[in-house]
């Protein structure tokens, strides 16, 4: 669909300034992509932290259960 739109679009009068216009728009796109990439790395780190936290919670819960069992035996 997008390919059809691109081919159906009228030709742009690029001339000699076409490379400068392309460069400006590529810079904006690159900035947005770089930002999204950095945020994706941070999201991965957050996921790791959450996993670690979940493990800590499970370990704490297991320790609590073990304590309770020991107390009931005594």
């Amino acid at each position: 669909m997008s390919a059809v739109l691109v081919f159906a679009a009228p030709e742009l009068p690029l001339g000699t300034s076409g490379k400068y216009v392309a460069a400006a728009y590529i810079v904006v796109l690159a900035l947005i992509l770089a930002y999204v990439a950095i945020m994706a790395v941070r999201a991965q780190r957050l996921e790791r932290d959450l996993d670690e936290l979940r493990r800590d919670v499970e370990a704490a819960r297991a320790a609590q259960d073990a304590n309770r069992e020991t107390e009931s035996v005594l």
Partner: protein
Amino acid sequence: MPSTTYGKGLRGLALATLITMTAALVLVFFYAPLDQTQGFVQKIFYVHVPLAIISLVGFVFGGVLAIGYLRTGDRKWDMRSYVAIHMGLIFGIGGLITGSIWAKASWGHWWVWNEPTLVSFLIVLLLFATYQPLRFSIEDPERQSRYASVFAIVGGAFVPLNYIAVQAATAYVHPRVLTLTSANLPPSMGLTFVVSLLAFALLYVTLWKYEMAAKNARSQVRRLRRTLLGDDLARPAGRSAAPL
């Protein structure tokens, strides 16, 4: 902060941004007429000017949010102000680079030092570029937030003053297409510019909310970890200029 959900409505906002951005690109390349004097290179105007405007608005927004911190002492205002300025810097760098590319295509130079608009924008950008090192240099979180807020308010107030000073300057090399009272654009170019400005404004708001949601989630994970393990056992937060 725990009660605030910044991710709410983010999907709809991102979709609106995508649609507006696509509409802006279509209008720029297939609707707006070619400028008679500048030709095709004028198309840079539709990204350069919105980026610069949103960047400056972002700095002022950061200052306004910082007032919230000084009034309430609630660190969520500081974080909001930090993210607003951070986003403003990113948009500002985009505006500076695209402006430089336009200058090279139009004037034959990447940078012109005797042009007040360019130099004043660079001064504002460099001023706000010192915001993060300032935060970074202060260890105590309370002092860090207070000093950063004062900086954000003073810097934010400097932006409109700087704009007025540039308007009052006499040397005009930079094209004066937009002023506070008028826009010297034909209607089709004006519409394209407004849609483009709206697209970048939406992008700013989306990214601001996205980063706030990420920082909020990270802050909550750290708080839970501290609650669970105690302050001593919790892994120390890495040295960061960002408020958490």
